[in-house]
């Protein structure tokens, strides 16, 4: 290529780039619509979980737009932005959509990554944009007085630890039977994985079981030594706090050291079909905590099947993913968004909400049993009520599911965590954070 053609092509590329970067004019007008920036990660190691998850989101919102005519008449504009599960691309997506898009307003942003959730904390505080992370937010952000813009809805790992211990107690025949039991936690060696060390320490003191903590380095493709440690320690139960490829390898390795699968309880991120299936026969009987119960037998899923899937309008390429853990997670997440909008509409009127209004709505969510029934989501979600004091939801609950070799069976009803047990510790951590950052906590008025 001659220098001249190179210069020409370089100039052309630069022009194209400039046009692209200021490309809002190409897109349809979004005025009067509510923006839902969909942060995607369709490539990279976590893409398999995103695909059904994204589809659950999109399908539900499509149903709302096309069948219900929008949320109280307000259409939702879904705009995708690929983060590749990296923080920096996530920040670009946040900056791209924080002020809306072509007239469509942004009420809240779902970053779809715990790391990004943390990274956006300061920015969101300055920009006053609510950041919502159902199931994957920061536990200290439960304290909405210190974190006005963070919403770690639905679940946290401390509650998960409680639920696990509760389930084990049920199996053992009561909390008093926990004394002397050995519960090993095999955790992904990261901030996420270590998060349960502290609550399990507290619980072990309280109930007298022996708490064994064993780390697995990322990505966790070799766990022979860890499982030998577990077997040597004589663990009765294993709490598997895995991530990605670590889970199937753990299940397989457990089988080869002879540890029974039905004594392993996976974390919510170790409890999808893609976590159990690759382990093959070894996974039969494997248990997992589920906040996003799989299955197609819920009212709303039947509706989605009829109105979206069967009409060929689903975002799923592979319909067998319908009703999987991650698909249902997507649906549940979309429900939290739509319900927040409804809450806001009641106060501000049926129009697209601003971020400030979105923040109020998310803080005043109340999806009670009655509303859950109306949504056709009985068994799919547990009641969710937020306040300034509690950005997570007042009651945290999960089910235990079991892999039958092909799919998940639900083993228990909702097991509720005792929120009072750790509330003070979390509050104290939030207060320490506020002090470090020089934040004046808001006063709870409601």
């Amino acid at each position: 290529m001659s220098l001249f053609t190179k210069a020409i092509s370089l100039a052309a590329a630069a022009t194209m780039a400039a046009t692209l970067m200021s490309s809002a004019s190409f897109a349809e007008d979004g005025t009067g619509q509510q923006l839902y920036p969909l942060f995607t990660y369709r490539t990279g190691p976590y893409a398999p979980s995103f695909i059904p998850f994204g589809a659950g989101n999109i399908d539900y919102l499509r149903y709302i737009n096309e069948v219900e005519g929008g949320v109280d008449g307000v259409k939702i504009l879904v705009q995708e932005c690929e983060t590749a599960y990296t923080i920096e691309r996530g920040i670009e997506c946040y900056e791209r959509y924080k002020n809306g898009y072509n007239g469509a307003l942004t009420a809240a942003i779902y970053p779809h990554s715990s790391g990004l959730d943390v990274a956006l904390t300061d920015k969101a505080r300055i920009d006053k944009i609510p950041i919502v992370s159902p199931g994957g937010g920061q536990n200290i952000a439960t304290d909405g007085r210190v974190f006005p813009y963070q919403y770690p809805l639905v679940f946290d790992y401390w509650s998960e630890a409680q639920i696990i211990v509760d389930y084990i107690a049920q199996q053992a025949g009561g909390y008093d039977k926990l004394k002397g039991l050995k519960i090993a936690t095999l955790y992904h060696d990261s901030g996420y994985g270590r998060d349960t060390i502290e609550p399990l320490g507290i619980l072990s003191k309280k109930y007298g079981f022996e708490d064994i903590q064993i780390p697995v380095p990322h990505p966790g493709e070799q766990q022979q030594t860890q499982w030998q440690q577990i077997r040597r320690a004589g663990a009765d139960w294993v709490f598997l706090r895995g991530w990605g490829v670590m889970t199937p390898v753990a299940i397989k390795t457990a089988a080869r050291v002879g540890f029974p699968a039905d004594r392993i309880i996976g974390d919510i991120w170790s409890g999808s079909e893609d976590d159990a299936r690759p382990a093959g026969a070894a996974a039969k009987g494997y248990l997992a905590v589920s906040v996003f119960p799989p299955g197609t037998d819920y009212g709303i899923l039947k509706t989605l099947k009829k109105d979206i899937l069967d009409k060929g309008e689903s975002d799923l390429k592979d319909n067998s993913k319908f009703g999987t853990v991650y698909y249902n997670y997507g649906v549940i997440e979309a429900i939290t968004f739509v319900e927040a909008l409804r809450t806001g509409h009641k106060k501000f009127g049926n129009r697209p909400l601003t971020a400030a209004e979105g923040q109020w709505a998310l803080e005043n969510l109340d999806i009670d049993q009655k509303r859950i029934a109306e949504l056709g989501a009985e068994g799919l979600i547990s009641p969710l009520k937020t306040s300034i004091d509690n950005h997570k939801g007042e009651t945290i609950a999960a089910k235990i599911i079991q892999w039958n070799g092909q799919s998940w069976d639900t083993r228990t009803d909702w097991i509720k965590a005792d929120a009072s047990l750790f509330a003070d510790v979390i509050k104290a951590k939030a207060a320490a954070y506020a002090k470090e950052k020089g934040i004046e906590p808001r006063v709870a008025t409601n």
Partner: protein
Amino acid sequence: MSYFLETLVSGLFAGVMYSLVAIGFVLIYKASGVFNFAQGAMLLFSALTVVTLTEKGMPFALAFIVTSFVMVVMAILIEWLVLRPLRNRDPLTLFMATLGLSYVIEGFAQLLMGMDVHMLDLGIPDVAVQVGGIYVSQFDIIASLIALTLVATLAIAFNKTRMGISLRAVAADTLAAQSIGIRLPVIWRIVWSVAGIVALVAGLVWGSRQGVQYSLSLVTLKALPVLIIGGFSSIPGAIAGGLLVGATEALADIYIGPLVNGSVSTWFAYILAVGFLLARPAGLFGDREIERV
């Protein structure tokens, strides 16, 4: 003591798995002086191809052969589109090119075959058997046999066939080899093909343990310290390095890990490797170059 032994043995078996990946690197480094970061992507691509074909109903043996063929085609394309235009460039540029190549291969793998996590069952039972008071996995034993067979085959191919001798000539002295009429592009195509098939074998063994999915491409990182210790250009080195890394890593995790509150195996192998380099700058079996001025 038996616990120590058991840890050691399982570490050694893990080491065999690392070696299996490392061999592919060594082949390519030997013949073309390229540190091929795309080896991981090739692993993913080949395993994904086999799984996709078998899931479509093709018998495993046929799928294996078809995939081998695909890997040969890939090798020819890589030689033609990437290596040839970059001939005589410095090793770092070639390394960067293979990084770019890994994006391309991963992209194609997932574009063509989707991003699902697949189960791969090779029909090898993965249960523990007791050997001399130690639990050993049957799968590990068979995986080691596969690795052994692979190494033996490669050794025979290198030492007995004409092609193998040409390859060794190229590795020893590229210019001299060219001057006696060995055609480099041909050698490259062959070596990349063989490396592709090695990747296929490694991909299947690894894939059957952790499922065939994107993370397969990350096993590269485990092979790196193995290569540093063994030397980039020595197959026996790759085996010895693998065993050493596997064993010390497992022992370090058990005996050092608790002291420093966490597992150490992400970096331990690298620090070990650096220590080795300081003592033997060209690895266990690598050739030391004498600087001429």
